[in-house]
């Protein structure tokens, strides 16, 4: 009986070790998101300077499965992600909507898109984080998958890569497209 006390630490540790092992198999980029499963928040952003479109508002997201990408010309990781977004655009895999977040210079965002290419169907200018706060954005880049009914289904943190697209985002988008509106 007394021996048991000396075995307890080992058992306790094995339990913790088991949890750590499970923890390793999960994706640390999956942060808590309160927005998943909820309708897209209401917002109405003006267009970028020099772009002749109509801006970007929550109503634009209610017809088909789409992706909302938060970026900024100041964000290095967005540069990393950008070529892959161009690839999505070129192959017409899914429409991407952009939120140009926290630009201090109104010209910087448009200049960035002119230089590296524009993968976005519509882009809204969000220097004051109006939409970003409503979406619960923690950093850039961040991407949201929205279904046909305009409900946010997934929040992806960090740059989208070939791998995360193939393994996570594309299967989800395919699944949402097959479903009857979400």
């Amino acid at each position, binding site marked *: 009986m*007394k*021996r048991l006390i*000396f*075995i307890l*630490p*080992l058992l306790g*540790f*094995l339990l*913790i*070790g088991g*949890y*750590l*092992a*499970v*923890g*390793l198999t*999960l*994706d*640390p980029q*999956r*942060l*808590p998101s309160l927005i998943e499963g909820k309708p897209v928040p209401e917002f109405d952003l003006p267009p970028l300077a020099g772009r002749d479109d109509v801006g970007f508002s929550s109503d634009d997201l209610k017809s088909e499965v789409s992706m909302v990408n938060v970026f900024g010309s*100041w964000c*290095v990781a967005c540069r990393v992600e950008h070529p892959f977004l161009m690839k999505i655009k070129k192959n017409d895999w899914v429409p991407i909507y952009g939120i140009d977040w926290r630009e*201090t210079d109104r010209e910087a965002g448009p200049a960035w898109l002119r230089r590296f290419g524009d993968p976005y169907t519509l882009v809204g200018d969000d220097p004051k984080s109006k939409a970003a706060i409503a979406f619960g954005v923690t950093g850039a880049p961040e991407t949201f998958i929205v279904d046909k009914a305009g409900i946010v289904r997934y929040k992806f943190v960090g740059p989208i890569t070939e791998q995360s697209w193939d393994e996570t985002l594309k299967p989800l988008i395919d699944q949402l497209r097959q479903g009857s509106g979400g």
Partner: protein
Amino acid sequence: MIAELGHFALVLAMMVAIAQSIVPMIGAYQNNIPWMRFGNHSAMGQFLLVAISFGCLMHAYVTSDFSVLNVVQNSHSAKPMLYKISGVWGNHEGSMLLWVLILAIFGAAVAAFGQYLPPALKARALSVQAMIAVGFYLFIILTSNPFERVFPPAVDGQDLNPLLQDPGLAIHPPMLYLGYVGFSMAFSFAIAALIEGRVDAAWARWVRPWTLAAWGFLTGGIALGSWWAYYELGWGGFWFWDPVENASFMPWLIGTALLHSCIVVEKRDTMKAWTVFLAILAFSFSLLGTFLVRSGVLTSVHAFATDPERGVFILILLLIVVGGSLALYAWRAPQLRSTGLFQPISREGALLLNNLLMGTAAGVVLLGTLYPLFIDAISDGQDKISVGPPFFNAVFIPLMTPMIVAMAIGPLLPWKRGDLGKALKTLWLSFALAILCGLATWTLQSGQSPWGIVGVAIASWLIIGTLTEVAGRIRLFKIPVGDSVRRFINLPRASWGMTLAHLGLAMTVAGVTGAGAWTVERVQSMAPGDTVQVSGYDFRFDGAEQKQGPNYLATEGKFTVTKNGNFVTVLYPEKRTYTVRQMATTEAGIHTLISGDLYGVIGDSKSDGSYVTRIYFNPLVVWMWIGAISMMIGSGLSLSDRRYRVGAPTRTSSSTQQPQAAE
């Protein structure tokens, strides 16, 4: 060429470590003296080889050798020299190399200074130390080689994360690692003792200095990290209960418990199995910290680049080291016999209380840190949650309050059997002053936070209580003052150490309380010439100008601070943009007063020429840093006590000259 030499030296060091983990262990079994001695030579050899390897990496950084991948990713030719050097350990691979370097330094120190150690114990401890080292060498060589080349060489580097380009953070990791890795020595001695099946006063006397050294460094490391967060992150805070901070705090808590339980083993020959358990635990927490930071199982503000492959490796290492040692413990610890009797009201009883509270505190921090992970594992990643400061504050304050109350009483109790009433009577002054300070606080702060009052009361209780203990030791006012002064000067250094460490903790508690309960924060947009008043100080914004640093651009703001029209100071907060990584950092402008810090931060500019500014008054913060320094000096003094220097832990103790021996 130099990089290859470094890589080669590291592989050689691993070979030596493999030999060191086998030969002395067998030597100890067969009582073969030359084989046991092999441990001394190999520990020295290992140290030399790792030092060469580390030097090679440092050479690559200092000379900006951009054919080495690690240098490309973490350095830049325009970076100041200090950060070229600190860049060596400002990344995953380099910091692991620093880890094994410190491990080797500790091993070599045992070989060099342990001439009085029983040869078999020393051989086994060095062998265990080498086994840990082998695991880490393998980890570095297989998954995190810092000497990897790139071809063609890069034109310039990608620069070190700007947040890490800071003098405080340049020395923070080495300090922290000296602490973490220092516990490996206590661990190795614990395993060696379990193998031998014997723990005695001599063993405790050998373990304690290593623990003291590790604890002192860890205290410094944690304080530096916290100081850095305070002035660099610009949130006015200093501790965020972030997983990485917790990872360093848990070994500190357990290390504190170990430090105290070693005294009981040494003086009273009891609590042996418990002390061995703490020694294993302290190092296990250090390893767990390493795992949490690098594996990516928990997200954190300052985690290293995460890589599941490394995570798997460290997890396996953790399972072998911790699981193995706890299995050995389960098997052997029941045979450790204690002879001392145990009365609850006694010095050892007070130390046990310290152990229980520290252990519980560490358990709570562990639970809070891993809880998100448990939820994650159970719910299949559906809801990630994080446990925030409210949880930690709610459980930590009730645990620390009785501990600090007991901390003033414990040193006044004699060994074996104490008289609580007598001890409490001695403390009447502390009690009166604690109540007085608490009441004064209550009046001044007009009843906002009950914790503020409690914090001030227990901090003053501990300060006066600790001073009372010193006064008792030198028999102040009971014998002529001259004699008291002589006694004061001749107090053993260990007793000085305890006094300073306990005072340090009291000051830290005061600082944490002040900053936690009464920080005043103002956020506003200010145009040049605007004035804002915070806690009686007028902050006038005198505008901002652009400055060019070596590898950054900065907006430097200027605040002139006055109080009732009298000039106090000028603050120069900066907002820096590091050109290579396009990352912005904040440098708060801080002016420290005894009563608190004046703290200014400059934010973004607006189109009308005004700036968003944040002004804080953080009361008593400086006492946290003074307290931490006092704890470090305390551990250093205790470490230099003559009973450790005189070495041979023999029965003819020198304490006859000093009837009031340490602690």
